[in-house]
């Protein structure tokens, strides 16, 4: 009996795998997540190019300072062309954000940022590598189908397109958390707290400058204590690994997103990491289920429409009606419960909602 059951299960496995492959590669679904990310990436591209442009305005380019080429064959743009490329990148970033010629603009922004990154190894930072990867993935996606001027000018039938680039970006985002967490996990200096403790001690003057003596004294007493880092460092490693895996499963996804946002805000406050925090938070939009308006909502409030950027709900605004929401599986929530559920699914409010009740 057991043998029969397992052989049947084994026979079904390839079918499930092929169905999954077909869903990922052949069937269109909502690309709204990629559209949200496109909007976030636009300003980040400008923010990223800003120091290069500021130098260019002072007449300085990579030609005028130490550079370490990646490859001898890589073409070096003359100064004028290089500066022009940077400005083209800025223009493309603006078009990305407003969604005008969305896909072409994203490809152009990707090309400029990638070209600049690979001009010199001194241009490399992990956040820039992640930016290049995200730009490539969003460009591969038909990202102008939602939240864009393109969609306003020539409305598509729906916001669906092939979503395999979104799956690829999910993999890349998870790899970033996993690679970072795992490398620290196997490093005794890191997981044992030595690395973070040493940094805290070395940069305590910056904390004192930022907080002033009165506030800094008790804070520093804690953060420069060796024992504090025996707890903080393993917790940081566990956080990264949890995000890497938690995002993949529906039951843990919302918690993982919440933890990821808190994690990135924490990193940005303690260590400035250029565009990393913003693009990583923006990339969380990729984890939304790629279907839209598959929950129905009756509400008296107009604000839900304005805040439902991911189009989670098919909304009917009825003045004076009480809240009523029908979930994907047919579950009906009414009144306060419906309102709380809706808050857990809106990007602007989910952080402040009691998401653990509505996983």
């Amino acid at each position, binding site marked *: 009996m057991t043998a029969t059951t397992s052989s049947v299960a084994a026979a079904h496995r390839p079918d499930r795998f092929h169905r999954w492959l077909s869903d990922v590669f*052949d069937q269109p679904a909502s690309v709204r997540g990629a559209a949200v990310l496109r909007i976030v990436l636009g300003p980040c591209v400008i923010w990223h190019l800003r120091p290069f442009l500021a130098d260019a305005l002072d007449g300085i380019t990579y030609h005028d300072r130490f550079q370490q080429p990646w490859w001898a064959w890589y073409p070096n743009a003359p100064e004028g062309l290089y500066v022009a490329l940077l400005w083209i990148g800025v223009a493309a970033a603006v078009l990305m954000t407003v969604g005008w010629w969305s896909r072409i603009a994203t490809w152009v922004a990707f090309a400029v940022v990638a070209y600049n990154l690979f001009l010199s190894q001194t241009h490399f930072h992990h956040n820039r590598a992640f930016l290049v990867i995200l730009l490539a993935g969003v460009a591969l996606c038909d990202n102008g189908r939602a939240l864009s001027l393109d969609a306003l000018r020539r409305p598509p039938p729906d916001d669906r397109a092939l979503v395999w680039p979104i799956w690829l970006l999910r993999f890349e985002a998870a790899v970033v958390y996993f690679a*970072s967490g795992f490398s620290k996990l196997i490093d005794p200096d890191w997981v044992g707290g030595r690395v973070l403790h040493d940094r805290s001690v070395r940069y305590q003057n910056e904390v004192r400058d930022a907080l002033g003596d009165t506030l800094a004294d008790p804070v520093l007493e804690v953060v420069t204590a060796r024992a504090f880092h025996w707890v903080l460092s393993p917790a940081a490693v566990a956080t990264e690994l949890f995000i890497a895996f938690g995002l993949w499963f529906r039951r843990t996804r919302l918690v993982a997103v919440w933890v990821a946002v808190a994690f990135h805000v924490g990193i940005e406050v303690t260590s400035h990491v250029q565009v990393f925090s913003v693009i990583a938070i923006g990339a969380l939009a990729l984890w939304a289920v790629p279907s839209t308006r598959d929950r129905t909502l009756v509400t008296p409030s107009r604000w839900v429409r304005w805040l439902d950027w991911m189009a989670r709900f098919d909304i009917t605004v009825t003045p004076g009606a009480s809240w009523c929401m029908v979930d994907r599986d047919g579950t009906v929530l009414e009144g306060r419960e419906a309102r709380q559920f809706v808050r857990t699914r809106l990007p602007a409010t989910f952080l402040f909602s009691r998401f653990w009740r509505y996983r």
Partner: protein
Amino acid sequence: MATAADAVAESTGPQAGPNRPLWRLRGARWFAAAVVVAQLALVANGYRDAHNYFAFQPFNESSTYAVELARVLDDGQRVAVPNGRWEGYDWNELIDWGPLRSPWRQRHAFSGVDAVVDFLDHALDWMADNTPGDTETRYWEATVTYYRNARGPHVTVIRSHDRELGGP
């Protein structure tokens, strides 16, 4: 209520599978597989590459370093360059890159000691190639004293390639 899978399955959008040529469908799968394999290879490579490019290992060390810069002249004489200034040149102006700025002071090792030493090595070569007004220096030498995660000191010496002196 329709599920996400149903929504996907019922799709008849313009890019649905049957409307796309087979080579594009297969090409997407092969491309995605290649990206996954390449990314995993880069992550693995990060454990041997000093710079861990595309391996995503930020904040990997809390190491520090300081450099004693010296010019070695044609006659073998070793001349210290305490503040990175010599014969009208300035290290900070020439290199002009944050992680290697004022390396004669104790500095945080950006991306780890191994990455900084490798960059310093290339920076010395770059200096040797981009200081045509210096007609004395045969090669550059940097004595790097570093603390890896607060353990040390360790010392390593690196030098640039030889320069051609007394040109046309």
